[in-house]
């Protein structure tokens, strides 16, 4: 605490007290805001905005919000219904598949229980699943298996492996090693070590993460339809490009309602297991 005596001395001399600066080094304290300012100037000066188009858009904004005030569930109901069913089916199937597939990758990607080559291979798969947005992965699966919810389900399952694999692996790396060692000391096989030394320690967290991922998968299932991977996103995209904003509003309301429902349910489940 070398900074304290100087400040105490200053306050003794009758100068008003000042709170300690957030950043100790003066050059960093002044340099960072300057750098930030320089970046903002550079950023704003290079953003090209067609203000004429924006001004005309404000007119259109009135139509959009007018449409939002009168949501129309009926005239495109078949599309909305099919899209929502597809989204839900994709979410359920992909979450289940993703959970099952993520477990071996998570065990492989935990440094404390897997050998280095396995660890590196599993980490690579997990990192690939996490680095790209769902919609980019969806483009690949659509090329491979064609348009429709199968591509969407595979996309979400792949992304689920990345998400659960990483977080579960981190959880496994933080376990208490003593129960594992105890099982090993009694001569337990590798499978028994995992089942009695590792699984009980990470199970509650795993259930919580899986339920959380179910939420995320539903949200994502509402957009990957934009590139043709099934779900409500396709209907949403169509309604916007046809300027049927009342239908858009109806779809958004349905999405928000389902998100709220799943979030509420997952909140209850997570509270019970943790």
């Amino acid at each position: 605490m070398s900074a304290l005596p100087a400040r105490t001395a200053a306050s003794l001399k009758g100068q008003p007290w000042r709170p300690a600066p957030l950043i100790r080094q003066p050059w960093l304290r002044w340099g960072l805001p300057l750098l930030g300012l320089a970046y903002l100037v550079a950023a704003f000066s290079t953003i090209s905005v067609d203000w004429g188009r924006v001004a005309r858009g404000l007119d259109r904004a009135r139509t959009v919000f007018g449409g939002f005030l009168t949501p129309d569930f009926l005239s495109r109901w078949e599309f909305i219904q099919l899209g929502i069913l597809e989204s839900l089916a994709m979410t359920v199937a992909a979450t289940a598949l993703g959970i099952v597939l993520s477990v071996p990758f998570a065990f492989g990607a935990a440094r404390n229980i897997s050998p280095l080559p396995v660890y590196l291979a599993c980490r690579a798969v997990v990192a690939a699943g996490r680095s790209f947005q769902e919609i980019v992965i969806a483009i690949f699966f659509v090329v491979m298996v064609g348009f429709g919810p199968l591509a969407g389900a595979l996309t979400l399952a792949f992304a689920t492996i990345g998400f659960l694999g990483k977080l579960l692996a981190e959880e496994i790396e933080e376990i208490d090693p003593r129960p594992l060692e105890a099982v090993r000391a009694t001569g337990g096989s590798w499978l028994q070590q995992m089942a009695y030394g590792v699984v009980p320690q990470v199970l509650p967290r795993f259930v919580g993460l899986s339920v959380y991922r179910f939420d995320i998968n539903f949200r994502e299932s509402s957009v990957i339809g934009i590139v043709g991977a099934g779900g409500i996103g396709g209907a949403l995209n169509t309604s916007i490009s046809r300027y049927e904003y009342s239908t858009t509003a109806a779809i958004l309301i349905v999405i928000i309602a389902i998100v709220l429902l799943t979030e509420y349910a997952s909140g209850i489940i997570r509270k019970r297991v943790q």
Partner: protein
Amino acid sequence: MPTYVVGRERVWRKRTPRQTLLAYLGYLLGAIAVLVAARFISGQTLWFFVLDAPEQAADLVGRMFPPSWGYANRLWRPLWDTLNIATIGTLAALVVSVPVAFLAARNTTPHPLFRQLALVVIVTSRSVNALIWALLLVSIIGPGVLAGIIAVALRSIGFCAKLLSEAIEEIDFKPIEALDSTGASGSQVVAYGIVPQVAPAFAGISVYRWDINIRESTVVGLVGAGGIGLPLDASIASLQWSQATVIFVMILVLVVISEWVSAKVRGAIR
């Protein structure tokens, strides 16, 4: 945890018979749901097109390699736009989310009615994906970086406001009482009692959301909202997969850097 007498021994069981039955019922329902979902998806799928998936994949990889690295020279501007969409979008979202968070936090909201209103804002913003916001905005204000910035900002408001309001709800009230007892004004209480307590959480949330927004801003271009998604969309639409590879590599590098920065900054705050 019940025990039972079987023969002469007492046997330990994890669950009562009733709990066991309920657990199996739960598994059964889950399995049925998955099967129904799988059947539905299968019904919506043209399996004829799925059968040649391995050939399609091999063909795709063949087109993607070798990457046409020369294309990278035309990507610096979209990359800069992507960075700007994420950064300015995050800043705009923070400006809006601070008042929303104070309204949404139980201990700082002026009236429960304001709290409900703030919660509606948070839920709406969080439930709708940035890409959907981008679709809407592109159709309102036209394609371009501005639509991307606003889309990213709208999606981030709910996220930041929710986490920040939770941080505000967890503050310690003793410093505030102490300030009150010295006769501090309302703004002084906020500045010296509340802000220092939530500032670390605020900084952490900002950087975390910025990291997420870098990822989001790489794809909003797919619907026309600027950034590196625009050339990606163009490359895929014209089947220039060797160009798409270059873009994927750039996205990967950008995401890795932003994740590293975010982890470093959050580590420094703690």
